[in-house]
């Protein structure tokens, strides 16, 4: 079964996205910070990811995004602050979905991106 990664510091949003992956017939692991997210990438066979941009305390998802890009794993940036994306993640080439957006739309977009039909 395909495994996805959700990097999100807000538990309700993380949970909502995780459920949306399950509804679509997939599984997802969640992470609240870059270290955890990178550990998931190293330990599991992640096929795609949804990254919250601002992780609190001025930390962004930059480290995870860089790692995913290096591994060639597709991902989507999910953020409420488009300006800050521009400031911090200009060099990262990934689709951006502005918050708020229904979780299933976000998930559908990622599944579309990795070229798998949503089941």
């Amino acid at each position, binding site marked *: 079964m395909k495994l996805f990664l959700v990097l999100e510091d807000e538990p309700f949003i993380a949970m*909502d996205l995780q*459920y949306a992956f399950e509804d679509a017939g997939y599984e997802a692991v969640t992470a609240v910070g870059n270290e955890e997210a990178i550990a998931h990438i190293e330990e599991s066979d992640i096929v795609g990811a949804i990254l919250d941009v601002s992780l609190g305390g001025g930390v962004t998802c930059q480290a995870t995004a860089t790692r995913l890009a290096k591994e060639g794993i597709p991902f989507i940036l999910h953020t*409420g*602050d488009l300006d800050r994306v521009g400031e911090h993640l200009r060099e990262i080439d990934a689709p951006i979905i502005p918050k*708020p*957006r*229904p*979780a299933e739309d976000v998930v559908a977009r990622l599944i579309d991106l990795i070229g798998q039909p949503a089941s």
Partner: protein
Amino acid sequence: MTSDASDDSTRLKSSNQAHRAIYAPDSPSNAFEGASGLLFEQAMAQTRMAVCLTDPNQKDDPIVFCNEAFQQLTGYRAEEIIGRNCRFLQGPDTDQAQVGKIRDAIRSEEVVVVEILNYRKDGSTFWNTLHLGPIYDEMGTLKYFFGSQWDVTDIHQSRADERHAKAMAREVSHRLKNVFAVIGGIVNITGRSMDAKNVARKINERVQALGRSYEPTLDEAVLGTIHVGQAIRAVLAPYDPENDRFVFTGNGIRTEPNAISAIGLTLHELATNATKYGALSHPGGTIEVSWAHVKDKFSRNSLEIEWIERGGPAIECPPESNGTGFDIARTLLGHSRGVLETEWEHDGLKARILIPITNG
């Protein structure tokens, strides 16, 4: 005028003006000669604009004249000023790039205006708009540099305040978008646990349409009004992922944010209907959305939004029920004394939202 000190002090008493600033022992004695010279001195003493003259023909271009306003601005007395190069007003936070511009202007004998951070005698700082230029005698020889100083600290402060307000508005906007996203999560998770996923989805769609209609307001919270076109585009964006279904026509009119929640939800219901049954359910179907300020039948300033669908499935007869979505929209608009009119034409739905606004 003479540079004789006793003569100077006598005149100071008689005119009650601050002439002591003219003391410039090394300057040519005929610098401010005759009646026009006297008027010049009077004007210089009285103007609120801080003025100084420097003598580029002396070593290190010293100040040879400064007026009362210059002393007031800098906190130094004339005797502490005359004979020194202007750079004594600079300090650690003075931008050296601006200083460089002054230096270049002096070297090339050009007029220049720079904004520079200067320091008073007591160490406090002020933003100085310095206007600097050469003064020549009748032979075309460079005699002085003229410098006028204007304290623009207030302007700098208001610019900083504006930047701060914008940064705050952006932060609030970011947080509110996150709040809307969290609400979405709570609604979905609750709906799932109570076996009401579809209800949860419907609630969420409405909550999020509301969130999107406030997006432009939040980003421009300083203005207190909302850009109607931006709000309409933000609400409808998710229904048009390829960005080729909606045709928007309108100008940059603004309205107060209160009206926008009813408008946002109404547009959401129209778009949902179009996605299920109308122009958005059919490849190539389009919707024209236009907005303008009009008077309603009670001559109230109103916002009118027209919605014209084309290229969807042909409509044979109006639907039996407009559905609860339109009912909710009508009720909401009604609270703001607004209306939603729908005409189910063969080509597609034509709808009109009319809502009074206060600052039309």
